[in-house]
């Protein structure tokens, strides 16, 4: 039992160490979007950006994406940009899933998972708040505090800077 607990703690510590942390520079990327142009993160330098990772096979991602869409609608006039990055292998499934949600935020496709690897995504959904200088300021995972609606205050603060 003790060995198991120690193993669990070690795994958690390793996972926390591997994840991209607040204060680190957000890795740049360029991805195709569903039904839109290719998008590059560095072209949004000077804006507050949320990069959220999702998959069509992830249960909580549906609600997560809808919350992100609402958050974007509320804060887009203040300059908030949201990139929802899909990590499915099957791009058709991702496109169909996205079409069913009729979202306004750009949905990006990362079939090679190069961007997810760069951000060291260890769970889905997972979102990163990036400030105007391109620095990661918040990392939220799929738990109660990780819901996009709870990130509102943090994003407003970043938008006010």
């Amino acid at each position, binding site marked *: 039992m003790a060995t198991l607990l120690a193993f669990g703690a070690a795994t958690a510590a390793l996972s926390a160490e591997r994840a991209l942390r607040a204060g680190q520079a957000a890795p740049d990327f*360029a*991805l*195709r979007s569903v039904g839109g*142009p*290719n*998008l*590059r993160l560095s*072209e949004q330098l000077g804006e507050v950006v949320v990069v959220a990772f999702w998959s069509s096979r992830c249960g909580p991602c549906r609600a997560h994406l809808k919350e992100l869409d609402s958050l974007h609608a509320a804060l887009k006039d203040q300059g908030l940009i949201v990139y929802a990055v899909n990590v499915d292998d099957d791009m058709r499934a991702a496109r169909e899933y996205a079409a069913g949600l009729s979202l306004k935020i750009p949905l990006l496709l990362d079939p090679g998972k190069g961007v997810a690897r760069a951000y060291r995504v260890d769970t889905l959904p997972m979102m990163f708040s990036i400030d105007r200088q391109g620095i990661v300021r918040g990392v939220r995972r799929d738990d109660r505090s990780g819901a996009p609606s709870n990130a509102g205050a943090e994003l407003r603060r970043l938008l006010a800077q």
Partner: protein
Amino acid sequence: MLRVARVLIPVMLALAAVSSGAQTPPPTDAAVTPPAAAAPMADPAAAPAAEPAAADPAAAAEPAAAAPDTRALDEQIQTLKKDAVDLNRELFMLEEELLFPANTQVALFLSMDVGEYFAIDTVQVKIDNKEVSNYLYTPREAEALLRGGVQRLYLGNLKVGDHELVAIFTGKGPSERDYRRGAALRFKKSVGAKYLELKISDRQRRAQPEFEIKDWE
């Protein structure tokens, strides 16, 4: 290394000067301010007593004397910023010299002419059958290329000898159709840097885009 030291030392000295200036009052202030006048400023209880002194012309000159100090500090900060930018440039050049020495360096550039028959989406580059670059273009980047921008697509090292470069271009061709074309070049790398250019232009006569790889001799 000497160049970096030449830039680094003045920056560090300026940094030290600025930080010491921020922590302690400049000696000139201490010289012109009599200790008796300085004491009431430090004691909040005595502040009302110091108020009449504001009418004194000598005391009124104090803020005016502080203004040049601020200007001097501002100038120091600007000099420091310029030195930091120069240092960054020197370090960048030094890094490139170290990572990509001239005798092994290979640089690949991409340029576009006109673009009536081709809208660029991606360029994949292979050297000796090994992928060295796979670049996805945003509309803004494509527009920059059409306006005459030249992009450095790849910078790396190659051994002296014969090599093969293959570039695969994808995008929208004539009539907005998906378009995919390749271009290849066999080239000889000798001692000294090698510069190659992927050039996309419109061939008006055939109403088709043209892809070529030029060797900057």
